[in-house]
């Protein structure tokens, strides 16, 4: 099969997944609304601090809101298209991965659209934060219109970086079976860390977040240029390079890891 056929197959699997989700419309709407509400409380927590003190290390409320928004939207894009990579543990523990191995397509392609999630709540919350923060900064003349396409661009490269980190973490599951504790560090904690300027953290930690777990390239590094004119336009190339390199490495690791798969469960 060629690439075009793979993509149309992926599209078909996603459509099937959406149809199954839409069997429970009320649950979907309620869940989306509550997800948005709950997630916004996390930003509110920080917004209250910023409202009281003005800025964190010179970063205003709009700027921190922007870091939050890009992170949320990148993560949403990753989780919408490849949620089951994050939930690989389920397949490893129950042995359900066996079934996917027998399909005449790459395992990753069979796995990714298994449970296509329409994360309306996250899109609403992230979208609202992005519009609010960019709108505020544009009105103040801090950024221009070009920030909009630039933001969309880094959301895409960011989602590739997050996907790669997620995939590499999931791959470790072929050896350890359980991965949720590790995901807590590589995905959740790392993602939370870069909602704030990296200058807050000790040197070893900010270095880690720019190298081994390159989440800093999702939002922080590009924001330095987009919002503050620091560094230079090369940050976009750097974000793309970080995405490309981490994707290549994690795919390679996945291909190696899957050869070590031992079925479990009954």
């Amino acid at each position, binding site marked *: 099969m060629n690439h075009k056929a793979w993509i149309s197959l992926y599209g078909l699997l996603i459509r099937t997944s959406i149809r199954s989700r839409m069997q429970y419309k009320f649950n979907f709407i309620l869940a989306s609304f509550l997800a948005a*509400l709950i997630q916004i409380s996390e930003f509110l*927590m920080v917004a209250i*601090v910023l409202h*009281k003190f003005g800025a964190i290390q010179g970063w205003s409320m709009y700027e921190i809101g922007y870091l939050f928004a890009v992170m949320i939207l990148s993560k949403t894009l990753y989780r919408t298209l490849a949620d089951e990579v994050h939930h690989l543990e389920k397949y490893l523990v129950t042995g359900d991965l066996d079934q996917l191995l027998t399909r005449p397509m790459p395992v990753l392609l069979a796995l990714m659209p298994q449970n296509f999630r329409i994360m309306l709540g996250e899109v609403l919350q992230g979208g609202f934060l992005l519009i609010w923060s960019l709108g505020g900064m544009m009105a103040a003349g801090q950024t221009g219109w070009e920030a909009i396409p630039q933001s969309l661009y880094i959301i895409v490269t960011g989602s590739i970086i997050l996907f790669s980190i997620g995939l590499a973490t999931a791959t470790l599951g072929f050896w350890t079976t359980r991965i949720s504790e590790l995901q807590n560090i590589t995905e959740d904690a790392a993602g939370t860390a870069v909602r704030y300027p990296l200058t807050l953290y000790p040197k070893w930690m900010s270095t880690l977040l720019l190298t081994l777990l390159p989440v800093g390239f999702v939002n922080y590094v590009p924001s330095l240029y987009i919002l503050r004119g620091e560094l230079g336009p090369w940050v976009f190339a750097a974000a793309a390079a970080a995405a490309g390199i981490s994707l290549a490495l994690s795919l390679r690791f996945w291909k190696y890891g899957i050869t070590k798969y031992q079925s479990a469960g009954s």
Partner: protein
Amino acid sequence: MLYFTLASKAYSRNLQYRGAHMIHNIASAVFGFLYACIWIGLGADYTLGEYGTQGMVSYIAFTQAALWVSSFVTNGLGIPQSVRTGHISLDLMRPVHLFTHLMAREWGQIAYQFLYKSIPIYVVYYFAFSLTFPSQLSFLVYAGLSLAGAAYMSICINYLIGASALWTTESSWLYWGNHAMINLLAGFFIPVEWLPEWLQNIAWLSPYPYLLYVPTRFYLGLGSVSALWGTLFWCVLLTAVCLLVTGVLRRKVEVQGG
């Protein structure tokens, strides 16, 4: 004796997963570390009221450790799951009151979390941030008392969340909603007195500040003993509501599976 057995069973079941929990503790400690870094960053530019930078770091360290006692309890005390499997009908038939039965089990869980989560996390912060231990024993006693009350309130709140599973399949959202309230109103990241005034008023009308803020103030030596009356008031009120709900619940058993 029965209740003690239920609690000790819940405790020892967790012992099987000590290794995984220790790895999870690293992740939990990282979160607190991030929050502490934010306050250290803020403390470099502003004076942080009566706490000061080191005080806010201690504040975060204590709340992060206390979370495992007063907020991370089992989702709905496991009721939503037993509604789904139909197990709830058996639970209600037992010659033990559902509320006390589930509560005993949860105390075992909390005891485990206190020993294997709160304490290791606190010890990590103690060395990482060179914390100082409270200077007076009474601070610790009051903090311990209010924390025990907080654990009890949290059990009640989760019992009510669990009970809602008999009416809706979406009770897990209440669980997450409860967490959002803890984030915002319990003083999880920001002391309650620094909230905007209207939000402070809402917070003090709810049991949330008693879950984290009040025990933490005692720990820091800033609390006033009268706050313990608030803890007691909410414990009594929530118990009454739980008992009332159990009465209604007995007549409304509905299982989703079989």
